[in-house]
């Protein structure tokens, strides 16, 4: 397949890695954060860190929307699914995310709640049309990639006058999360040092690379908007090494095949029409972040599950040995958590980072363990 296989060429990857090794200065180290869970997954899957010199370290960021969904929102979704007549639809990744008391939507489904996995939000609209006696609620999660599709289905529900469809909106925005990392006491105090950011290609296809221009401008952080194939990631790391070596802090676009400065203006317009900013939204691991989440505008109240159903107030999050919070902020690695691979596995996750395939713990579990074993015995 053009556009995929060519960007996985092993020979080219090894050669680019050698160029990175030659250009990285031995007298210093480099720490680059990949924000997006898609990159975390690619870095583990293709063992990219093993190709890099020892003084380049990848720090995994909070860009997995399933992982950052707070316990309170999962509890609310479970309560919603338990209401009579409700069919809850969502993406498959969300089902195993633990809420409080290790409850999940998957367990609620096993206990009889009507919970369906959909590939596309449009499937939820079709289900509502086909089941007029059910209240179909779409549990919407994700960054700026899944938000425009949700906007389209809300407008479609309005057009169809669909009275038995609503959206439980948990969409969040990428730039405020990056700002939260860079503003964190750890980043300000030097405990988390970053020399550059791998920016998300698909989010930028919607927002435009412009949405990330403030990070070079306000923080002096180099940003490279990067595709998700291994050659994309390696090229971006080389671009970041070159920026760091030259003392530059600029926004560069590695994914020119799909990202422009402006992004998809039509999609941006639909998002602005349907959604408005929340004053604040809770992120697992990051806490409350101002203007980081969105909700349906009041004129779409008829399709807003938060206005149509009474939802429980979120409980305080209980103390736990799970280190997802530190992992999502780039302060710890999965192997630093004592639950990793013992109490917490993809089959029985305690922390959300173990749930989604884009979570750092799940990626480490799937691809990293054999590597570490190999090193120990080597």
């Amino acid at each position, binding site marked *: *397949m*053009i*556009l*995929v296989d*060519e*960007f996985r060429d092993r*020979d*080219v990857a090894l*050669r*680019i890695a050698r*160029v990175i090794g030659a250009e990285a200065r031995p007298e210093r180290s480099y720490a680059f954060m990949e924000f*997006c*869970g*898609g990159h975390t*997954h690619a870095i583990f899957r293709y063992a990219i860190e093993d190709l890099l010199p020892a003084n380049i370290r990848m720090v995994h960021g909070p860009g*997995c*929307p*399933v992982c950052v969904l707070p316990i309170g929102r999962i509890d609310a979704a479970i309560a919603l699914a338990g209401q009579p007549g409700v069919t809850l639809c969502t*993406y*498959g*990744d*969300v089902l195993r995310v633990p809420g409080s008391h290790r409850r999940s939507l998957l367990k609620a489904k096993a206990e009889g709640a009507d919970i369906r996995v959909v*590939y*596309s*939000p*449009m*499937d939820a609209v079709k289900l509502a049309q086909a089941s007029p006696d059910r209240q179909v609620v779409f549990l919407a*999660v*994700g*960054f700026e*990639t*899944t938000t*425009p*599709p949700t906007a*389209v289905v809300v407008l479609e529900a309005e057009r169809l006058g669909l009275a038995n469809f609503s959206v439980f909106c948990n969409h969040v925005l990428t730039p405020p999360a990056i700002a939260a990392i860079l503003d964190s006491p750890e980043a300000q105090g030097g405990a988390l040092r970053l020399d550059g950011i791998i920016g998300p290609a*698909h989010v930028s*296809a*919607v927002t435009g690379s412009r949405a990330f221009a403030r990070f070079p401008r306000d923080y002096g952080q180099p940003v490279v908007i990067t595709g*998700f194939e291994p*050659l994309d990631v390696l*090229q971006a790391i*080389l671009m970041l090494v070159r920026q760091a070596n030259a003392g530059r802090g600029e926004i560069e676009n*590695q994914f*020119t*095949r*799909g*990202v422009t400065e402006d*992004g*998809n203006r*039509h*999609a941006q317009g*639909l998002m602005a029409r349907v959604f408005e900013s929340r004053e604040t939204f809770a992120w697992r691991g990051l806490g409350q972040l101002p203007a980081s989440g969105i909700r349906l505008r009041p004129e779409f109240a008829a399709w807003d599950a938060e206005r149509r159903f009474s939802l429980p107030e979120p409980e305080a999050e209980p103390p736990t040995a799970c280190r997802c919070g530190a992992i999502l902020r780039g302060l710890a690695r999965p192997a630093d958590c004592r639950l990793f691979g013992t109490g917490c596995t993809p089959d029985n996750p305690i922390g959300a980072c173990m749930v*989604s395939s*884009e979570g750092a713990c799940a990626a480490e579990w799937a691809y990293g363990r054999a590597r570490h074993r190999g090193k120990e015995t080597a």
Partner: protein
Amino acid sequence: MCLGLPMIVVELRPGDVALAEYEGVRKEVSVALLAGDVAVGDFVLVHVGFALSKIDPERARETLALLAEIAGLEAR
């Protein structure tokens, strides 16, 4: 959910829908986000059943040529 795929449009259908293909698998996707700017043969980036943007194969070739140059290889 977050994994997007580049698919090629093989047929346009009524109602902002296109039939798109990836590695021999064909699926209906919504092209409502492309505001009509889509044709058969276009590559589109698909997330959760929606084409988010078009992928420019010319730009992809330029990137591959640059990668080959960095790698010290002749462009293929």
